[in-house]
């Protein structure tokens, strides 16, 4: 008995196949979900993958957030359904107010695609339990609107409650993946809600699950094994 993990496809979603593959490689059963379908097909967790849903028109994630499938996801996430938003999925989660803050265009105004080093700050969320707190990992990052922003009070709250789940590592050679790639406040790469079931992350763990492709690393697999272990042991 394994877990069923859904991956949503919005119009303009790009990394849905990659996320489905990552779910499969982690040992879970991947389930494709469609934006117009409110039914989550009995999945145990949901991944909102990266891409440019609705072309990032209006604001990244702003139109997808109102799709039928999101109605159910928002309702069930509040009741504890594990949800991981990657890149565009993170943007959808902030637009849906499941996570605080917002995503703005990179401070350097360019799209950036690179290998990125992160520190796992919170290893107790549904999607990070397979890591250790303080662990440093390396996964690809690629975004145009990746600058995480929130007001100071919200940022302080996130810090105080340990809800900054992943942080960009800045002390090191940029050629080795160090540095804040988009101007995110407090080097925030990913955050979690208070319950730890909803996590948003700017870099792309689904691109780092096989030694053969991408940057050749497999640090991304931990996100998917984390949720699988949690679901199977539950």
């Amino acid at each position, binding site marked *: 008995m394994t877990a069923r993990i859904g991956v949503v496809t919005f119009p303009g979603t790009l990394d849905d*196949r*990659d996320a489905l593959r990552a779910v499969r490689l982690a040992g879970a059963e991947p389930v494709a979900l469609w934006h117009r379908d409110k039914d989550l097909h009995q999945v145990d967790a949901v991944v909102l993958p990266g891409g440019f849903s609705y072309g990032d028109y209006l604001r990244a994630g702003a139109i997808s957030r109102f799709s039928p499938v999101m109605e159910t996801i928002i309702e069930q996430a509040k009741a504890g359904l594990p949800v991981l938003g990657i890149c565009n999925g993170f943007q959808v989660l902030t637009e849906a107010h499941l996570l605080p803050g917002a995503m703005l265009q990179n401070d350097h105004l*360019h799209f950036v695609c690179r290998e990125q080093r992160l520190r796992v700050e919170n290893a107790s969320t549904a999607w990070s339990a397979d890591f250790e707190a303080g662990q440093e990992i390396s996964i690809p990052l*690629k975004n145009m609107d990746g600058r995480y922003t929130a007001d100071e009070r919200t940022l302080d709250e996130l810090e105080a409650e340990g809800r900054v789940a992943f942080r960009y590592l800045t002390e090191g050679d940029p050629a080795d993946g160090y540095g804040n790639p988009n101007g995110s406040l407090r080097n925030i790469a990913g955050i979690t809600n208070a319950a730890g079931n909803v996590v948003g992350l700017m870099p792309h763990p689904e691109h780092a699950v096989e030694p053969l492709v991408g940057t050749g690393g497999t640090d991304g697999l931990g996100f998917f094994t984390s949720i699988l272990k949690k679901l199977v042991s539950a």
Partner: protein
Amino acid sequence: MTLDTVKHAGETPDTELPWAELGLKQDEYARIREILGRRPTGAELAMYSVMWSEHCSYKSSKVHLKQFGEKAPANDAMLVGIGENAGVVDVGQGYAVTFKVESHNHPSYIEPYQGAATGVGGIVRDILAMGARPVAVVDPLRFGAADHPDTKRVLPGVVAGIGGYGNCLGLPNIGGEVVFDACYQGNPLVNAGCIGVMKHEDIHLAKASGPGNKVILYGARTGGDGIGGVSVLASETFDDSKPTKRPAVQVGDPFQEKLLIECTLEIFAEKLVAGIQDLGGAGLSCATSELASAGTGGMRVELDTVPLRDATLSPEEILMSESQERMCAIVEPRHVERFLEICEKWDVIATVIGEVTDGERLEIFWHGEQIVDVPPGTVAHEGPTYHRPYERPSWQDALQADDAGALPRPAGGDELKDQVLRLVSSPNQASKAWITDQYDRFVQGNTVLAQPEDSGMIRIDEDTDLGVAIATDGNGRYAKLDPYTGAQLALAEAYRNVAASGARPLAVSDCLNFGSPEDPAVMWQFAEATRGLADGCLALGTPVTGGNVSLYNQTGETAIHPTPVVAVLGVIDDVNRRTPIAFAEQGQLLYLLGDTREEFGGSAWSEVVHGHLGGLPPKVDLDRERLLGEILISASRDGMVDAAHDLSDGGLVQAVVESCLRGGNGARLVVPDGLDAFTFLFSESAGRAVVAVPRSEELRFTDMCGARGLPAVRIGVVDGEEIDVQGEFTLGLAELRAAHEATIPGLLA
């Protein structure tokens, strides 16, 4: 407004039409009248003028392009050859791959972002129209001098446009080039390539057969994009009240294109189309005339059913519009309902605009009145053919006599070291990461190799790890010195790059960028380059499957360097066996493969150190290229090499610096017997590569080279954190990295 119907044209034979403004010659207009037996209507004239243009008809180039067919090597892998949207090659295991490179040069100079973006969009639709899922893009780019102010306008816009469009489609950008040369000032070359993958049975061809089948236009609404010229018809001849200028710039909507891709692939999967064509240059004129003439000939289109973005468009403008993100499909009546359902699922507008008829005429109606009645083949394929005069330019001899070998060479280790630093930090040899980091190379999760590797490599089957590789190369400096050899050097380099990655080269696509064909000197360059490329492809056994010609790349009397850009596609049975360029482990032994001669004509060294272009380009030996390729592929398959990097512009030292920086390791080099340090480091002799051999494989590797007659000389070892050329100089990796990586951001960021 009077509608210029077929009937009206018959009744008013003497009405003057603005054929000259539309770019037609007197004899071409006379030919159209002869074909039709009357004067053309405005709509017909619009169609002929655009389809008979240089861009669509290849009228200046086709007498030379014929060689690619005539000299094509026998090759079992070719499934679809030249003439379709793109060629298709068998890569085994039931898979076929289609690929093509096209230019979008002039639009990218006018409006860099949209010009480059729509260039990507167009080539992706070409690939899609063959029935393939697009899996990767590559972008060979050429700009004016790196420090010219206009380069700072054009380059960032082009790069942002390629990224903005390609990233939004979810296609990894895995290769290409960025070259700077003052000759491209005012004429940047923005070439875009795409690879698509399909099963053999899914190949789709652009033809409309089966009377009664429906013609469905789907995708974006039609607006006034890219029809500047044809507006003449509407404004001057038929209706003076209309705006006289339509925008010449086409604007792309990558989100619409992404939906079009997914929608089309779902339609393919359910086998709902009998024929399909993308709408690119010449829009509906091209799609309807080509589909009809490739089928049984007859088609009837109700033009007023075309969904419009701008209700004021005239029928001529609708026929000409180059609005992006549109496709045209031929669908059996029983499949129409399902076809429209899938379009609805993806929020794609689809409209039945006509049907295939059992006649032989393309007939187009506007609110019930006929405005076009033509034999479609005369529009699509019977455009004029020019045998333009060509002549070796008078300056060619003097240029070749200006031997780069006579230039002052560095004296001693310090000067060598200084020139190495200047070379690797020069705009053409510097790291292009600032540019390529703006492209998504990871999406789809199948990217095995991407820039700055020798080739881009994509896994196409997750179960068997079958993969394909692509490399694009061109060197306008070599081609200027000798266009025949220059074209072969571009081919040889791309071939070598693919082989160095471990893939077997299979087929070629090209993008031929030249000046004005009306200049006999340019026409000679074109004739020589095409002859060289055709001869080269025959010798290497890699047929040209398709491509693109871009002429008139010149400002006033000054043409760009002749710039044939060649893409070579290869196949690798198991991508786990790929060979990267990185010197990843200390202790690996470095071998130089091939012969190094004193060849500096057109070299990066002569440009960077002396600002010189003269002499002869390096010699080409295609048998040697083939042998080198076989060795590299065997070594990759059998695990005899850990890294390989082809040697081309910048010579050995450029390759070693790139491989060291990529792997984060230094190297100790020894100048081999019979060579001086300068020639060893900077010569650009073709047919060479540097490989890193694990010690355990050294004997097996050198035995293989010896047995097959390929010169292989040990030149050093991967070691330390610096590059040391024994007895000459030492350069730390940190210093090299800083020099190599700071240049492009310094110029452009």
